[in-house]
């Protein structure tokens, strides 16, 4: 009997190993919870470009956007945990969104595969306002002005939370004007419709270089070096205890076979090593972020902790 059981187990093991060795046997779906044409959408589509040559099967993007990414997340978690469905995730889906929208998922439902990019928010003013730093902004507000600031989304959005928390710390009269995306927010500032806006590269870069906008600082704790602009000081270095590092990464369900997870990760790292992909990312004004699961999870933990302090400030 023991021999039979051993034999059966051996066959199952061999078959499963063979099955994994052949993975993938069909196309892989990448669920994108953000809208078409945006930064994460464009980068994930570029990542998918190399899949047919690498796997012999296509990796393709479907946009399941809406409800701050939770629609896509729910669709992703409803799919089979066979590795054929992966997800473009970000930090606030766990650190921020659950504070505003009832969600059915936790961080334990997913395993990060590899990072995609870091999002670096910068706070900007119009150059002709003459405001070049936070002290001048506070002085301007204290003259009786209510500061209007454009954010890339409403409550539950990362830029909204961070800039609102910063202004709460500054204790200045202000009103948020939520826009749909970074470029809209920057254009509202350039058009003179608001006093301040949050932006991330590459949307503000040329305006700053051309002298149309001023950078007041960044939430990245180490500060930021931007080509053509130079070093942008962090708010932390300016004496304000606030920091935020946005991130996008690829994830699969936590119950997916570790070998499949490894194959997916290897594929993305292969894409990152390709010179034309690196050139593409440089054109977007950023570099691919090849962080592993551990790093990403640690950052989400830190972000969740920080948000717990910022959200009460926003109110």
């Amino acid at each position, binding site marked *: 009997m023991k021999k039979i059981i051993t034999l059966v187990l051996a066959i199952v093991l061999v078959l499963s190993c063979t099955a994994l060795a052949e993975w993938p046997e069909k196309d892989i779906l990448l669920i994108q919870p953000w809208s078409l044409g945006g930064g994460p959408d464009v980068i994930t589509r570029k990542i998918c470009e190399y899949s047919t040559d690498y796997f012999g099967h296509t990796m393709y993007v479907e946009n399941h956007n809406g409800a701050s990414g939770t629609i896509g997340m729910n669709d992703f978690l409803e799919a089979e945990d066979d590795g054929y469905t992966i997800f473009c995730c970000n930090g606030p889906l766990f650190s921020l969104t659950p504070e505003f929208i009832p969600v059915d998922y936790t961080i334990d439902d997913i395993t990060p595969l590899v990072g995609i990019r870091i999002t670096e928010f910068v706070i900007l003013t119009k150059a002709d306002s003459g405001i070049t730093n936070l002290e001048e902004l506070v002085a301007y507000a204290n003259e009786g002005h209510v500061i209007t600031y454009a954010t890339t989304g409403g409550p539950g959005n990362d830029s909204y939370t961070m800039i609102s928390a910063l202004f709460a710390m500054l204790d200045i009269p202000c009103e948020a004007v939520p*826009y749909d995306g970074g470029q809209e927010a920057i254009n509202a500032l350039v058009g003179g419709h608001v006093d301040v806006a949050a932006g991330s590269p590459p949307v503000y870069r040329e305006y700053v270089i051309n002298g149309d906008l001023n950078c007041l600082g960044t939430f990245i704790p180490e500060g930021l070096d931007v080509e053509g602009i130079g070093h942008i000081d962090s708010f932390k270095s300016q004496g304000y205890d606030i920091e935020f590092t946005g991130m996008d990464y690829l994830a699969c369900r936590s119950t997916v076979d570790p070998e499949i997870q490894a194959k997916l990760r290897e594929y993305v790292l292969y894409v990152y090593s390709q010179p034309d992909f690196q050139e593409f990312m440089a054109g977007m004004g950023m570099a691919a972020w090849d962080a592993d699961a551990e790093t990403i999870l640690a950052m989400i933990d830190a972000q969740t902790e920080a948000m717990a302090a910022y959200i009460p400030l926003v109110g």
Partner: protein
Amino acid sequence: MKEFLGGLQILAQWQNFLIIPLGLIIGIVVGAIPGLTSDLGIILCIPLTYGMDPTMAILMLLAIYCGGTYGGSITAILINTPGTSANAATLFDGYPMTQNGKAFKALQMALFASTIGGLISAFALMFLAPLIAKVTLLFGPAEYFALAVFGLSVIAGVSNNSIFKGLIGACIGLFMATVGIDSISGTTRFIFGQKKLMAGIDLIIALIGLFAISEILMKSQYNPKTDHKTIKASEITKDKITREEYRRCRKPIGIGSLIGVIIGATPGTGGGLAAFIAYNQVKQSSKHPETFGKGEIEGVAVSESANNGACGATMIPMLTLGVPGDGATAILMGAFMLHGMIPGPTLFAEQGNILYAIMIGLVVVNIFMYLVGNVFTRFYANITRIPYEILAPIVLTFCIAGSYSTNNRLYDIYIILIFGIVSYFLRRMDFQLVPILLGIVLGPLAEKNFRRAMVISQGSPSIFFTRPIACAFLVIAFGSLVVFGLRGMKAKKASAALKPDAK
């Protein structure tokens, strides 16, 4: 000039002249199938462009975009269902022309007007883009709100004789637009515990339900044995557009193209709004407004020139400011990025040659669109010969496939069915569907920007009257309502005066 010539040189490769007709055919086909839009056509074809050089790739996608916007008019004219939201205004006169046996003429005019609108738009993109972009930046929340109000004032003109029902329809549309997460406050509205509704209702889903499904339901009492003969009896005339009709349509096409360019260049609006506003303006200024909505060829001309007039113009804010003019340009923006071109202020300086090749290519796209469309028009017209018992299941299948493909969700199919059933009853009660569509299209634009404007002005409505552009839109909207009101009163007086005579 150097960049213009450089662009011409890049464009003058034989591959470009092969890819443009291919893109156009794809665009016309997806545009003509209810539920499939040029947006979807572009998304599906983006992977095909990976191996192409940027000019060729973008030209193919632009051809799909322009072809799709024109293609949507085919179903609007033939089966009373716009292929895309941009073609909804074409319904007013396109379908009545088909019912009068003038489908061929309507299709020809749609093609001609689309081509002229597209060409004017392409030239505007080529020569006026930086200037228009500067004006676009002046558009803040107050201006957008006023523009949306101006768009909503169109309801008065498209509600036939029942402005009250038109307003109720618009309110239903505005209500539909509020479903989902409110992006300003972050709260959910009217989702009734359905998490899938948090994303709101997609415009294309609403469009399919409102028009296609309700149209099929309206024909539910159709009897193939008796009614088929009735349809066959109205033979399709193959009459070409007369010189007099071309002459009559010159002004509507001019107005449509101009409004198409202006509205198209304003981010977040698009060809649908342009077509409604242009249609309303032409109807208002016409010497025979009573013929509009009953198969007036000028109505088809103005609607189609406006929506295609917006095509090139939607590229202006996208290329110069990095803000897409509508949904399709948002996807095109992604395609630009995939091919290493980051839309925004520096694109003209960094990739001037390629950009000029694309802009000149847009002119070529429109010329090819006329040639390709002309070949196929005679075939489309024959769709009206297909017995309805065969056509209806085909349309229904495409509608279901199209609505599923929008978000890859089965849930959307339930939504189109609910929309279809509700619209069916509304139509039975003589409600117009276009005000509902206008409410859905303009609701978010109006609401978001009203709230943004009120935040900026710290609660003072004076912002709408102290900013010249916003004030001008509101004055025109008010003027438009007054004109329609006076006309309505005049028509009532005239009919009252006629009644005693009749006795």
